[in-house]
């Protein structure tokens, strides 16, 4: 344990927080529906992400955590639109950018890792081709230079027999290997911000631990920040410095991860933590969020 003086600039995970890289405020996303009022998927969401830190967004399915990430990328599914709010990234207001300028941001300055490594690589192209496509486009590298960099990147994310993997098609790789490839691709243009949307959910537990370790290494770069989306408080506790708890499109609680875990203020956060199965609970019914907050926060009480 460090002393009180040293603890000041450090975050809960012992990282050093830098200046604000991403500032989201008042973000509201709505989806058009037929003969119904639009569905508000994200409602007045605001949070800040400092360089050198990992900010977790936690919540159950449908809480709006992925939509928040998609809104930051400005890649909402059809029918969805950002109704209000501001997203400032490295001093640039993203919502004011033209589509072409926004596209230059994607992959180059903000990269995203998706949940399912089995479906987020193109099945028709080799790993090398997909990795270099991105670098050729953003960094104006030629194929050979891009291939050299792809080789280094794959080595850095712990992939063995790099040359063989570069020539392989996605189906020839295991899930864990594919997620490493996806992470290497996300890092290929040295982005400032990495958005990881449930990056370990589709993987089995041992692979999960390896990928978390890798992301931990990536988070060590003081110039970089990670937004880590998960429904799993255990993973959030392991990875994040700060946590944003979302419920039905709204932020219900936010703060340093240790504080939120030890003294959750909001009944929903308590309920979510209470829903984690613990050893010694054997034979008992597992608690659900509805069990615990049904009385305090009826499900229809959103607006």
């Amino acid at each position: 344990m460090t002393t009180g003086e040293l603890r000041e600039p450090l975050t809960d995970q012992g990282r050093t927080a830098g200046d604000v890289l991403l500032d989201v405020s008042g973000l509201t996303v709505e989806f058009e529906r037929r003969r119904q009022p639009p569905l508000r998927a994200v409602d007045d969401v605001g949070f800040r992400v400092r360089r050198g830190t990992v900010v977790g967004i936690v919540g159950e399915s449908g809480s709006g955590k992925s939509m928040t990430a998609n809104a930051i990328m400005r890649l909402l599914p059809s029918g969805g639109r950002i109704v209000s709010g501001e997203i400032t990234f490295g001093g640039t207001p993203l919502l004011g950018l033209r589509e072409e300028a926004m596209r230059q941001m994607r992959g180059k300055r903000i990269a995203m890792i998706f949940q399912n490594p089995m479906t987020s690589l193109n099945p028709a192209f080799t790993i090398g081709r997909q990795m270099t496509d991105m670098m050729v486009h953003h960094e104006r590298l030629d194929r050979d230079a891009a291939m050299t960099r792809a080789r280094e990147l794959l080595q850095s994310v712990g992939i063995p027999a790099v040359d063989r993997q570069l020539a392989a098609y996605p189906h020839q790789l295991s899930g864990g290997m594919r997620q490493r490839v996806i992470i290497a691709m996300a890092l290929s243009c040295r982005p400032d911000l990495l958005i990881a949307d449930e990056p370990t959910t589709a993987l089995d537990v041992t692979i999960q631990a390896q990928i978390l370790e890798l992301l931990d290494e990536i988070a060590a770069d003081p110039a970089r920040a990670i937004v880590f989306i998960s429904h799993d408080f255990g993973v959030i506790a392991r990875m994040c410095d700060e946590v944003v708890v979302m419920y039905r499109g709204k932020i219900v609680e936010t703060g340093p991860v240790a504080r939120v875990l030890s003294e959750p203020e909001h009944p929903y956060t308590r309920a979510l933590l209470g829903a984690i199965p613990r050893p010694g609970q054997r034979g008992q019914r597992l608690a659900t969020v509805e069990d615990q907050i049904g009385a305090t926060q009826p499900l229809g009480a959103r607006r």
Partner: protein
Amino acid sequence: MLAGYVARRLVGAIPVLLGVSLVVFLAMQLVPGDIAKALLGPLATQETVEEFRHYLGLDRPLPEQYVNWLWRALHGDLGRSFSSNMPVTDLLVDRLRNSAILLAGSLVIAIPLGIAVGLISAIRRDTPFDRVTMGATLIAANIPTFVFGLGLVILFAVQVKWFPVQGMVDLRGEGGRFDLLKHLVLPAVTTAIPPAAIIARMVRSTMLETMSQEYIKAARANGLPERTVTLRYALRNALPPIVTISGLQIGFLLGGAVFTEYIFAWPGVGDALYKGILSRDIAVVQGAVLVVAVWFVLVNLAVDVINLALDPRARG
């Protein structure tokens, strides 16, 4: 591996072709009337008719007739046309060449047009362009050849006289490539439009399906330009069903151009088939159907080989 696959498929095609030839042979037996009588005319005596039937081999039992035909067909002899007294093989080789010209002409239109329309509709989903073209393709895919082909003739050959009404060459002119091309336009368009519409609908639906895949979302999140995302990442994955449906259309076009060839007096296989049926020219009908069946088998094989080459998972 590929050669072995092709060999196995070709062997597998033999029973298919045997079945087709048998069905055609039996179907021709159902046609009412006696060929020998029809050929010799009303003045022939019963004796001459019997003699002629014997000469044609028509007095033998059916299985024997079939086996004889098959044996000769295997040696490249498809018999003699009753009506033109030409060897069917020679006749079909000529016809096949003409049909291939028509087929090539209509493919040059159908495939690029179908793919382009389907792509634009998929990219501009739910826009007026999409709605109008999808409505139009529904009509175009089902429009009878008589209506569409004759409509084109009335418009472009009779009214504005840009193209000739019928035939492959201008008998009064000097012929040549340009003359052939001028004669080709209307029949090629007539045969191209329904397949183009079917291909367009297929391209649109498979593109929409592919565009909803997560790797497309990932490609966008990686900042790749929309052109690369749709034309390379998505189209490449949408290709196998497009190849399959295009192949099916190419298969149909050779034999399915019967009405077009008839309307435009295009001397192809379809026209030979049509006339053969009318004059109960068994040898010609059998030969033509066999050619069409072989063509179908070959196109299907080509489609499967292309799709095998397109799918890295199938290559192992």
